């Protein structure tokens, strides 16, 4: 357990361009995981270590959550490079899930920007304790004091400076540590030599004043520190313990400053990670017990308990699939048998590796709290692994149905094979992403949870797989459903020439309560022989795949067959199949089908001054605003909006709020489409059918 106490799983989150990749690179350098430094947008073409995807290298941003391991001062640190962009929801959710703590990187010039707010709110959602690092203090216009105020005012953080700068902008040369009251400088080509000096006298008053602020804030979390302050016997240990307590409770945010690019302030930040962020044992993690109706169970982080591990990311390497795992409880050794809880398949741990961006180190054993990777394991992202003793899942098994589709076609011959490779990969990574080939048109159709969701995959196809694709217009996944009971009585009879066909099916269809298809056989006296009933059932089910109103799938209904007729010679499964199809066509429109449209639960977070504009924008989109909640600086507007109206909303929202708002949406329910929308869809369907016939 001692080892776990000295383990940190941290993320580095920030606004794009605040320098988090450079910071990560410096962390890897000082922890001796790499021996040279490359810049994100470096001229040497090598790029920073954490950016393993081409797209990221090109843009200088980080999308993928590659994990890397390093060691600092007898502590092991797993760094998960979290995506900073709100669009990459699945990635964000997964990477935040496995973090125990985080460094929030802020630009000393730009301060708390809209995206800093976004990532900070995500951290709040996942209750991740964090440190702030005010980067780029060497830049013109840098002002870490202003950034601390913004942290307090805009993000509601109880932020407290742990350091003050020695010089600023071009003169930025080091930091004053307010705990030890020493000035710290960073010498050598890459700042690797840490030199401690007395505080320069011009800074002494400022340092004393800021230390008072620090003591005031920290003493809120420690009676011992309060007493020590009164008795004037404050020690470094007492301050650190109090700050640690406040930080773990997420009621205090220690702020560090520096310039990763100029190699200033990174080593003290690493000290702070060890000192002020939690070990895996200090964080509560829960799984769902599948044997007890998905009841929530707390995991122990004990390496001797039964294993529970989560596959949080998959990566394709030239050697095969690499599966990143976070072990929550128990341990994994090379050669162990693991059970994938989703499909109960057993897998053998062949190679167990610790990741260092896209390089790896073979290990023989990993324990609770650790983040490692397995080689050659066929699984999906989000799968839970156990050693077979527990039937726990780290995430809900429920996967929402996609609500939007897009046709894609390869732009050239070379792209054709790459498209299928890419699709295979994405489907495994993301359970909400689907792909299929339309039987009629032969087109490849991808489906997902929103416009941006699909756009990202189209972009990734191009960048990662060299697959250039052309896309169609996004298509909403409408549904049809009957609204009343309708009788049917259909005779299929073909008795002229060749072998005859004869079958009559009578009964009714009616809406089902929970939209589940139900087939009820109430035929008495052998009017339809039992052996033909499965064909009748199957025929009705096949009809549900394409409704007669707009050609979209029909949500479940109850079909009751209570009468029929057969012919001793001419009746067959095929004949009853045709009869049932005829019965469906005969009664479906009589059952007054309606068109259902997917309605999304939309949540918009914006600075409070934009609440009115945001509400108006939702209202214009046929949205129903449910609530608006303010928490000081921010307002969250919750609404239900038809998906069809959400196309292009990201752009609208950006321009309405100066880019300061973000929104998320998820499928809520199907709802009857208004008459005007339904008429339009019916007209489109009629056109399509006409064209098809021509």
């Amino acid at each position, binding site marked *: 357990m001692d080892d776990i106490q000295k383990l940190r799983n941290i993320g580095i989150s920030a606004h794009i361009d605040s320098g988090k990749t450079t910071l990560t690179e410096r962390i890897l350098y000082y922890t001796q995981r790499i021996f040279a430094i490359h810049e994100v947008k470096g001229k040497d073409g090598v790029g920073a270590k954490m950016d393993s995807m081409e797209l990221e290298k090109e843009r200088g941003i980080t999308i993928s959550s590659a994990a890397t391991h390093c060691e600092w001062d007898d502590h092991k640190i797993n760094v998960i490079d979290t995506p900073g962009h709100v669009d990459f929801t699945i990635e964000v959710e997964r990477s935040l899930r496995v973090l125990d703590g985080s460094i929030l990187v802020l630009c000393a010039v730009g301060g708390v920007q809209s995206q800093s707010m976004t990532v900070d709110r995500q951290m709040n959602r996942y209750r991740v304790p964090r440190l702030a690092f005010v980067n780029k203090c060497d830049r013109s216009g840098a002002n870490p004091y202003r950034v601390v105020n913004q942290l307090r005012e805009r993000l*509601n953080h109880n932020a407290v400076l742990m350091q003050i700068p020695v010089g600023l902008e071009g003169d930025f040369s080091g930091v004053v540590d307010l705990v030890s009251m020493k000035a710290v400088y960073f010498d050598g080509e890459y700042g690797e030599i840490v030199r401690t000096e007395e505080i320069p006298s011009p800074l002494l008053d400022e340092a004393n004043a800021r230390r008072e602020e620090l003591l005031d804030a920290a003493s809120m979390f420690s009676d011992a520190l309060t007493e020590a302050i009164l008795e004037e016997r404050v020690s470094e240990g007492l301050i650190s313990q109090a700050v640690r307590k406040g930080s773990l409770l997420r009621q205090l945010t220690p702020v560090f400053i520096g310039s990763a690019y100029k190699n200033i302030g990174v080593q003290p930040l690493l000290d702070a990670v060890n000192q002020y962020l939690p070990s895996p044992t200090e964080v509560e993690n829960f799984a769902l017990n599948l044997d007890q109706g998905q009841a929530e169970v707390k995991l122990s982080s004990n390496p001797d308990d039964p294993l529970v591990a989560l596959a949080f990311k998959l990566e394709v390497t030239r050697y095969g699939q690499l599966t990143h795992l976070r072990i929550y409880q128990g341990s994994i050794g090379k050669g162990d048998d693991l059970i994938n809880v989703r499909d109960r398949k057993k897998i053998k741990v062949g190679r167990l590796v610790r990741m260092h961006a896209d390089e790896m180190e073979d290990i023989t054993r990993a324990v609770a709290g650790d983040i490692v990777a397995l080689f050659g394991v066929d699984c999906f992202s989000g799968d839970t692994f156990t050693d077979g003793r527990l039937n726990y899942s780290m995430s809900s098994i429920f996967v929402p149905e996609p609500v939007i589709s897009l046709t894609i076609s390869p732009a050239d011959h070379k792209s054709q094979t790459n498209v299928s490779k890419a699709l295979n990969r994405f489907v495994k990574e993301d359970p909400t992403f689907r792909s299929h080939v339309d039987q009629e048109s032969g087109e490849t159709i991808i489906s997902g949870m929103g416009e941006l969701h699909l756009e990202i995959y189209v972009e990734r196809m191009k960048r990662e797989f060299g697959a250039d694709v052309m896309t169609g217009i996004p298509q909403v996944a409408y549904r049809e459903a009957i609204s009343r009971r309708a009788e049917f009585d259909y005779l299929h009879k073909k008795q002229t020439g060749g072998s005859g066909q004869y079958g009559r099916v009578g009964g009714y269809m009616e809406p089902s309560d929970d939209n589940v298809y139900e087939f009820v056989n109430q035929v008495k006296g052998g009017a339809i022989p039992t052996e033909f009933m499965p064909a009748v059932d199957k025929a009705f089910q096949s009809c549900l795949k394409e409704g007669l109103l707009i050609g979209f799938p029909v949500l479940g209904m109850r079909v009751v067959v209570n009468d029929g007729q057969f012919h001793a010679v001419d009746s067959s499964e095929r004949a009853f199949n045709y009869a049932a199809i005829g019965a469906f066509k005969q009664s479906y429109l009589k059952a007054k089908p309606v068109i259902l449209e997917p309605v999304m639960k939309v949540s918009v977070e914006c600075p*409070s001054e934009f*609440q*009115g*504009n945001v*509400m*108006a924008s*939702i*209202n214009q989109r046929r949205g*129903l*605003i*449910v*609530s*608006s*909640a*303010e*928490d*000081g600086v921010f307002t969250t507007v*919750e609404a239900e909006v038809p998906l069809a109206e959400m196309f292009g909303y990201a752009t609208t929202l950006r321009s309405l709020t100066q880019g300061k708002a973000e929104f998320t949406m998820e499928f809520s329910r199907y709802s009857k489409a208004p008459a005007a929308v339904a008429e339009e869809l019916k007209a489109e369907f009629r056109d399509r059918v006409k064209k098809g016939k021509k």
Partner: protein
Amino acid sequence: MKDFIKVSPLKVLEKSSQKGLGRGNLGVLMARAGVGKTACLIHIAFDKLFRKEKLVHVSLEDVPEKITSYYNVIFYDLVKALNIEDEHEVRMLFERNRMILAYLQQSFEIKRLRENLKNLVEKIDFVPDALIVDGLDFEKAERNVFEGFKEIAEQFRVEMWFSARTHRHITDVNERGIPYPCHELDDLFNIIIQLQPTQSGIVLKLLKDHGVEVSPEASVKLDPNTFLVMSE
């Protein structure tokens, strides 16, 4: 929904001089912790919603999800108690006519409420008829906050219902019979109702009735499970 209106806690106001609170006025439900102030307020909300009025629920304590689930639980009870058949339509109706405004982490300010109501009216054409204000700490809030609410009630022509917590150990009562913590604010409220738990149910007792003398019979008894008026 005629049945509900007959058994709604607001039936107590039939015994008031003006048969109701009235637009531009403030009303308050007073009770000790745990008696059911919020449940009673939500019943008042349903009374308004079932009359197809538009309602804003202002919460100073709970997140919207919690308030929504509170409404759902009470609605579920009402469906059972009143044999509501067109449950889906009724639910759609009240969801369309209800708006939740939550102010968390002490972020409530009168000027924000005024601004938010203005946005509702101007930006989405949601013109409220009534406001429910839950979670306001009557002991800490200054008089000017209540004056601010009164101004808003008048400006937006809404009736506004509050809940106030009383304490067993604080027995202060003003000369007009209004107990702590409303004893110094009663001039701002037109209707003051006290909820008193008894062995056979919860008694809603009218303490203030638009400045006229309160009739001694001005009370109704509620079923402690459904918060609906018990038949006499």
